């Protein structure tokens, strides 16, 4: 195993101008959204970034994905400094890092077909889809569990969970080594959320890529992360192995965060599990034989 992590971010700082404070020529006040954040993601692992709204998670993700420029600090990919890349050089980096966003509808151009969306990264990087764009699209759709016959449809013709799969397919199109998931499951219903989490885990197993997984739902993080970093007020207040962070939180903030998560009483859970196991033993039936369609 190589010792160089896939991603290495050091002392990232991002400042935003405060709206309305500057004029046409004057420089306004700034607000520090990310304050001296350092993190590493090793190959094949999932680093989860958790924290409350406004703590700077998305900004960190954008910095790492080079969607915005750092105020200071460095981003290394495969040990190589990519902080200052631009133009063609950036394309090579874009091939390695892809992003999946929170809102499936907002992250898919409503005017484009699945084909156009999924092949866009190649298009923008001046590459040809291997095996033709239709074949390519369809194979990706199969990979993420979508009906390949719907390759000409528009995003609005898919449900939220399906749309999120299109977003994942797009990220897979370039064969990335790192996928940044910014709240990729937060907007979905529990059952759909479960599907997507499963899909992500499955893909990681098959492709071996790394995730920078951003979420505010700690329960989700627990299911998917190998390591966890907790952000608050633009800083990382605690980082470590998943189980050590969850089971032995060191920082006060982490403890508050964990304490606030609503839980189903463990004894009820336990009771349910045993009953379910019993039931399963009795009748091996499909869980949901006739999925009734919802009203819409």
């Amino acid at each position, binding site marked *: 195993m190589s010792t160089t992590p896939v991603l290495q971010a050091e002392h990232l700082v991002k400042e935003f101008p405060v709206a309305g404070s500057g004029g046409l020529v004057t420089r306004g006040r700034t607000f520090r959204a990310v304050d001296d954040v350092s993190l590493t993601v090793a190959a094949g692992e999932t680093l989860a970034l958790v924290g409350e709204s406004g703590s700077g998670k998305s900004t960190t993700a954008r910095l790492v994905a080079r969607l915005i420029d750092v105020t200071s600090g460095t981003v290394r990919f495969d040990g190589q400094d990519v902080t200052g890349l631009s133009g063609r050089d950036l394309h090579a980096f874009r091939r390695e890092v892809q992003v999946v966003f929170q809102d499936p509808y*907002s*992250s898919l*151009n*409503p005017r484009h077909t699945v084909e156009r969306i999924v092949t866009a990264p190649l298009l923008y990087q001046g590459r040809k889809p291997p095996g033709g764009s239709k074949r390519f699209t369809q194979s990706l759709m199969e990979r993420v569990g979508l009906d390949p016959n719907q390759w000409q449809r528009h995003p*609005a013709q898919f449900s939220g969970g399906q749309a999120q799969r299109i977003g994942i397919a*797009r990220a897979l199109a370039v064969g990335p080594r790192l996928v940044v998931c910014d709240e990729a499951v937060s907007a979905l219903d529990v059952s759909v959320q479960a599907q997507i989490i499963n899909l992500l885990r499955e893909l990681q197993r098959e492709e071996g890529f790394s995730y920078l997984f951003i979420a505010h739902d700690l329960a989700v993080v627990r299911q998917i992360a190998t390591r966890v970093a907790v952000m608050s007020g633009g800083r990382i207040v605690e980082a470590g192995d998943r189980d050590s962070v969850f089971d032995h939180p060191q920082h006060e903030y982490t403890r508050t965060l964990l304490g606030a998560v609503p839980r189903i009483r463990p004894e009820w859970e336990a009771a349910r599990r045993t009953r379910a196991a019993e039931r399963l033993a009795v009748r091996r039936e499909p869980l949901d034989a006739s999925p009734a369609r919802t009203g819409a």
Partner: protein
Amino acid sequence: MTITPTELELTGAAEAALGGATDTVAPPPEVASGARALRSLRRDAGAVLSAGYIGLVVLMALFAPLIVRLSGWSPYEFDQSAIDPNLGGVPLGPWGGISSEHWFGVEPGSGRDIFARIVYGARVSMTIAVAATALTTVLGVTCGLLAGYLGGKSDQVISRVMDFLMAFPALIFMIAVLSALPASNRSALLVVIISVFGWPYLARIVRGQAMSLARREFVEAAQASGASGASIVFREILPNLRSTIIVMVTLSVPGYIGTEAGLSFLGVGVVPPEPSWGQMIASSVTWYSVVPTYFAIPGLFLFLLVLSFTVLGDRLRAVIDTGEAR
């Protein structure tokens, strides 16, 4: 100014007032195929009638020379026998001299055929309005997109220019400039002047939309895919503005028709003897009580054309807005 505020301006103003608070959240208001939009427009009597009338005027403009050969009179030909020299040149006969010879009657004082002038006037009105629309659309969309997408200083600069142009009493200024400029090539000048003052209204709306689109995650997704700024603007954002632009364009055509007619009405439009509807209305002002048809015919043609475009634009927007097109 006193030219009726166009739909465009009102929409723009309202948008500005609301601070572009019309940011939609998922699921997106989908706008599907143009074919569907067309289909639901075809079920709408108002839209069909409007499109029909617009088509008629366009045909009239295109085939003006042919039509005029059929009707027998050129738009410039004097017919002294159709007017009464002893009564100030009033058309002979009732209804402004409407007869089998002159289908819409004749112009007082000269006896020129009103039908022929209407037909040729359609040319002027349509050419100027369409050219001005094309120019404003290019200007408005480009500037609006740039301001909305780039934001920051570019936005500030473009927005200030728009503020500045919109602060201008455009009508007065247009008239002043037109009257001071030489009369040659008036049509081109009209187009340029109308466009210079017209584009901010479209740009403001495009800017607002581009701004909210630029905040959508698909823009970031494209960026993460390696799209350049130009690709994002023209391949990702622009397609989403299609319906807005179609609607705004349809709604701005009547505005420009009205402006051209208004300027011609005020005597700074196209140069005589070239006919324009606005100019015909202007020259009918002194005659309206004696020869109502002289005023009513170009007035009606103009009103209907403006109305048709307005109705069509309105219906188009309704279809697109309510997602009827889905």
